[in-house]
């Protein structure tokens, strides 16, 4: 347990001192800002035209200019964009050891590799969770600033719940990307697989197999589709399989870097 606490300290120190986490926090602000901007324009197109925010050929597909519409937009943005940001976070946490050639210092040490890896997973998950909390807080604040109608406790709670549940699913689904970053010894492989996953996810939903493709499930969930209970199990299984694959890879693969 002490070893794990020590490793968490090390990972936290690395994350806090690096610039990448700051960029993800700034990048994550873009989603509530875009959501709020679109809703603001949709709410009052004349004012937006006067302010130069809206072109003559504008074609807004926003839904409704109220809290339910705004939260739906936010949840959809966060579901897709969040996945990529989370991928970046976990790919950096694992891939940086290879990119900076520091991995060799983690291999012949008395601390178990399982503690080193678990600390990386915990810190990646906490990083992603902080991003979700950031976007939720900023989203709610911006919604209040642009004075959206329809702010009932039930609507706000429902929207927040969607954000948090979809975010949690996304966190679980990016855990295997620690394995891809290790396997590819850097950032390229996990980023490439993230793009592939998004494409395959869309294809699975289009073909009606979304329930069986874990990375498509958060999308189905935020769209209000009925998600089969086994899909949640599949997400959990994917996360555990990713963590196990990472552990076995670190334990048995030759480390040449």
């Amino acid at each position: 347990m002490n070893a794990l606490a020590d490793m968490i300290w090390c990972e936290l120190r690395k994350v806090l001192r690096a610039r990448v986490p700051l960029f993800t926090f700034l990048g994550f602000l873009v989603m509530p800002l875009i959501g709020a901007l679109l809703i603001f324009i949709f709410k009052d197109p004349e004012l937006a035209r006067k302010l130069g925010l809206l072109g003559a050929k504008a074609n807004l597909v926003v839904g409704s200019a109220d809290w339910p519409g705004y939260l739906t937009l936010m949840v959809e943005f966060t579901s897709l964009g969040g996945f990529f940001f989370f991928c970046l976070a976990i790919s950096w946490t694992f891939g940086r050891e290879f990119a900076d050639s520091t991995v060799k210092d983690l291999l012949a040490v008395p601390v178990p590799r399982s503690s080193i890896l678990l600390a990386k997973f915990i810190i990646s998950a906490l990083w992603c969770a902080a991003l979700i909390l950031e976007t939720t807080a900023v989203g709610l604040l911006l919604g209040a600033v642009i004075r959206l109608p329809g702010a009932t406790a039930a609507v706000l709670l429902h929207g927040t719940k969607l954000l948090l549940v979809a975010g949690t699913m996304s966190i679980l689904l990016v855990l295997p990307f620690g394995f891809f970053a290790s396997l590819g010894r850097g950032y390229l492989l996990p980023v490439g697989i993230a793009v592939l996953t998004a494409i395959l996810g869309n294809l699975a939903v289009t073909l009606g197999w979304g329930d069986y493709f874990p990375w498509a499930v958060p999308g189905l969930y935020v769209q209000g589709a009925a998600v089969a209970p086994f899909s949640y199990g599949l997400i959990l299984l994917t996360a555990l399989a990713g963590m196990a694959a990472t552990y076995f890879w670190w334990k048995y693969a030759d480390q040449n870097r």
Partner: protein
Amino acid sequence: MNWIIETENLGKRYGKVRAVENLSLRVAEGEIYAFLGLNGAGKTTTIRMLLGMIKPTSGSATVLNTRVQPGNREPWAQVGYLVETPHAYPELTVRENLEVARRLHPNTDKKAVNETIERLGLTAYAERISGTLSLGNVQRLGLAKALLHKPKLLLLDEPANGLDPAGIVEIRELLRQLTREEGVTVFMSSHILAEVARLAKRIGIIHEGRLIQEMDMEELERNRISRLLVRTREAKSAAATLAASGYLVEMGKDNELELKDPAALEQPEEVATLLVEAKNPPTQLLVEQEDLEQYFLRLVGMNGDSK
């Protein structure tokens, strides 16, 4: 004899490429063992196998009486290492990097960080981000990480890399002190053969993945070729004079005569007398002993500048 490192027919293949083959070596407690080889000879692969970073495809390695295999962490608390170019977390300071290294070795005293910073001459850089350090100071930081937990065994891949001449002397003294006063065993690879000759007690020479020779420095002393190099104004006539007196003479580059007879090496003045008497006195008379570098190059079939 207590062997700190022992390998038995250790080998590593990558497909058809044999990186290391049938490597059997032993390193005794408290000695400095130098592992020499050209680039790609298999030095780093061997060090990585000793550290459990690469699985051998044949044979076995034992470090501190423990067989090296996946999941066996027993020896690592007492092993410090530096593999290839050292790296550090660029966004962390020297002190923070050492703190990370300390936490990777539980039971290492907190004071060890400051002590090691001082010992490796890093005090002025302790709060500096390691990404801004010079190559020499990154090397010092790498050595500091290897020494931090007071290991019994040091596996060092090119420990003098990037260090200036003063730094090389400093590290040499430090390694000597560690073996002499603390009984630390050092297994090091190096390209700086003059440095190895000053420091090592035993050397192993690896070439194309095979250990082609393992010997004590005393043995090296016996194996090194000595020669007498003679220059005169009339090289051909001098060669004839010496040959007539029973010396075996070879004509080297630039009309330099080379004699390897023990008689010529033990009494070069006899050679000088003969040439003076023949009215062809030497303009140069030099007994030259092959250094480790020349010996090494001869052994691996590259003559280098050994004339």
